[in-house]
């Protein structure tokens, strides 16, 4: 029954994207600019610092928020990564993760707060978030490349699409989880909406918001390999390169770097959240 007519959605999408590229590329280039600046700043900053300083900072954070065990683990992981020859790639990946977390935070926390305070807003946002989380990254990689060209910045943008939803969802959940009586008490004492938000809702939602940030970091890291497909550097590129040349050893080394970084970042951010 479907032989007679097929909706030419594929053609429509192609035409639409091509039209966007031809006519509105500058809009996307403008959108790209802040991400590019942030990423470049982070990257050159991290690369300019002596590895010992970065290791010291990470270990200090691990010590401060968790304890001896995590400090030793972090130190070992960073040394392994360095001696595997992955230090530069790790710094690029770290810069990309940080950049995507910064932009996810800037966009995601306000959106999460709005959706936590308005049922209607959440109703509109929810299907969009579902689509962002379930659409395979390969589907939006090509349009992203067409609009933003290849490289680290495009990689970060793809990462943001993938890593943003959990932060929005968890922020919203955190705001909604604040006991209504506390909000009522704030109002009864004459709090404005802004004061209620800043003095009651956000502080009390903070553990959940931090859990969201942690999720964003983990998802950003999981995008590293996919982002490498569109020319992003970092720990993903040895994996992709190894895959293409069937150099298993190289791929495994890259993969190990990603796993070690993921564990260190996850444990440190989790203990920060718990300290709150």
């Amino acid at each position: 029954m479907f032989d007679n007519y097929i909706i030419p959605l594929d053609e429509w999408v192609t035409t639409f994207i091509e039209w966007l590229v031809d006519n509105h590329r500058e809009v996307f280039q403008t959108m790209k600019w802040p991400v590019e600046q942030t990423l470049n700043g982070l990257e050159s900053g991290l690369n300019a610092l002596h590895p010992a300083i970065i290791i010291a900072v990470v270990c200090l954070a691990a010590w401060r928020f968790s304890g001896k065990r995590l400090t030793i683990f972090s130190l070992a992981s960073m040394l392994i990564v360095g001696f595997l020859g992955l230090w530069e790639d790790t710094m690029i990946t770290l810069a990309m993760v940080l950049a995507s977390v910064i932009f996810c935070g800037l966009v995601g926390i306000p959106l999460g707060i709005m959706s936590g305070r308005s049922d209607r807003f959440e109703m509109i946002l929810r299907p969009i978030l579902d689509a962002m989380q379930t659409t395979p990254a390969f589907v939006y990689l090509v349009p992203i490349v067409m609009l933003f060209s290849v490289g680290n910045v495009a990689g970060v943008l793809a990462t943001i699409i993938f890593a943003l939803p959990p932060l929005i969802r968890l922020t919203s959940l955190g705001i909604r989880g604040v006991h209504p009586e506390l909000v009522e008490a704030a109002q009864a004492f004459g709090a404005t909406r802004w004061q209620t938000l800043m003095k009651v809702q956000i502080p009390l939602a903070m553990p959940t918001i931090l859990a969201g940030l942690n999720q964003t970091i983990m998802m950003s890291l999981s995008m590293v390999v996919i982002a490498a497909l569109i020319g992003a550097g970092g720990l993903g590129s040895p994996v992709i390169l190894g895959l293409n040349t069937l150099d298993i050893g190289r791929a495994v080394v890259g993969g190990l770097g990603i796993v070690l970084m993921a564990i260190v970042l996850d444990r440190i951010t989790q203990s920060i959240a718990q300290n709150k």
Partner: protein
Amino acid sequence: MAIDTFTGENMEKIRVEKLYKIFGNKPKKALAMLHDGHDKASVLEETGMTVGVNDASFSIEAGEIFVIMGLSGSGKSTIVRLLNRLIEPTSGRVFVDGQDVTAMNNDELVKFRLHNMSMVFQSFALMPHQTVLDNAAFGLELAGVDKEKRQERALEALEQVGLAGWEDQYPEQLSGGMQQRVGLARGLAVDPEILLMDEAFSALDPLIRTEMQDELLKLQEEDQRTIVFISHDLDEALRIGDRIAIMEGGNVVQVGTPDEILQNPANDYVRAFFRGVDPTNVISAGDIVSNTHPTLVVTKTGSLRAAHEILSGSDREHGYVIDAKHRLLGVISSEGIQNALEQGLPDQPISQAYMDEAEPVNFDESMQDILPMVASSAWPVPVVDADGVYKGVVSKNRFLRTLHKTETNGDSGGDQ
């Protein structure tokens, strides 16, 4: 009740006029049904909407503790939130100091809540991420009071409620009773004229509850505020309420002093509430006092002979002697006067004939308190106020008749 010293009239602090609250998406329809005389149940059945408050009108006087009492679902928690518009009324008006709260815009409402009213909650509703001190200073912080000043004020409030030394703790480290003291301190720190207390002590165990009630009464003695107190506990209402409003199914069915309601319950619901309440705990000597007995105003020349004339002309056995300021000086009996006259002392001062055992009772004392006195005295017991001013007497007859009346009215059981 606060008395305006200039006009001598009670001052109205809050006036509620024809207030309605309907929960649901088409309140107009439900409102129209209520106006047509339908009740809560039929509105719910026909429209699916819940009537929270139905045509409530009453006024609250400055400085009184006004208890709104009812079972759960009677609308009492809704009505207190309509006063500060935590819940928007469907229709009707709320005036505070003559100002229409229902007509305020958002900014005015925020300002009004900051300065005129504070609230104490059943679940305490303390900020778990703030210290006791910051919690107590919460209202002042919202008002933009600078840190040093608001902490100083918050410390004072904490001291008032007996929590000095606890200011650096977090709420979860405190017991329930102490948490509610913090809640009370938070309410007091902003120095509001009106304090709304929504089942403030209901979550506390009975001993602590009584303690908190005493604390509230003590605070009220120090600093008279208008307190609107929501409660489902009759004992609590009787204990702290100057006046009580009883709610049933969204309606305010009766407003009055505890003994007014006890003596004249408006309907069976109110009567059922008071079932089992001992009226002699509620009704005070001042409520049943009568002044049918002759009083003799004593001057310097007051003599036994003059007293004799007044008493024999009044057909009463006992007389009550007061001075020019109406203070009770003593009680005399016609028998005592007769004896004195027979001893040939007609010009002796009247104080010679005072009966030593005739002590007055205070008009605040409950019937329970004065019972032994009334029962054991052959004369009607004189009642005086705090300044010793004579208010009248309570006779055995009067006492028993009051008891009988409340028992048939309140149906409060035959075991009393």
